């Protein structure tokens, strides 16, 4: 069995795949690469909200999407401590990664991708796909 890797996937990536009806492929990458993916209720709340707002999902469709991705994530409750991100609103995401010893954050947010002060590796979903 491969050594598990600890990752965090940003809400924009979850929304991108769920909104375009391709989340099964993202779950496939998680399974194939033996990833431990961390999230918290705040991040899942963002995904839920964004699916309704951007992709016209009904509440029950967004609920079911969250329910179906939940077996692939470890829901953790980080405390806001480090305040390391350039933008204060992203602090919780950084704390989620740091407090769970995540080696990678998968995001498509250019602001986070270019933040060289982040104490974890930032990569896009395209990179995750190539890993397979």
């Amino acid at each position: 069995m491969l050594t598990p890797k600890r990752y965090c996937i940003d809400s924009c990536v979850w929304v991108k795949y769920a909104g375009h009806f391709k989340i099964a492929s993202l779950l496939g990458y998680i399974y194939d690469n033996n990833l431990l993916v961390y999230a918290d209720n705040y991040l899942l709340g963002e995904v839920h909200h964004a699916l309704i707002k951007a992709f016209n999902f009904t509440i029950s469709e967004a609920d079911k999407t969250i329910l179906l991705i939940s077996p692939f994530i470890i829901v953790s409750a980080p405390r806001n401590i480090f305040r390391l991100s350039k933008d204060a609103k992203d602090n919780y995401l950084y704390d989620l990664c740091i407090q769970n010893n995540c080696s990678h954050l998968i995001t498509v947010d250019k602001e986070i991708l270019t933040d060289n002060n982040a104490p974890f590796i930032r990569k896009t979903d395209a990179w995750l796909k190539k890993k397979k």
Partner: protein
Amino acid sequence: MQSTSKIKSQLPFQAIISAVKKLTIEEKQLLRQQLFATDAIAEMRVFELQLKKKKASIKKTDEEIVSITTSIRAKKYANAKKILY
């Protein structure tokens, strides 16, 4: 008195339960993925097919999606800040 076959069928289950209880959260998660991932992915595929049939596909670029999630995050952060301070 319990029959031998009953004892045989109960013992491994109890052993499995006690072994699972000793696992860390991460080990439990990996076990869960090994056991249920294939079924869960299949269920997600069925759900996505239903959504595809029911809803018109909306295409959004990465920038558009980031802008939406960022605005949601900013609003939630502002609300949390109001409550905390």
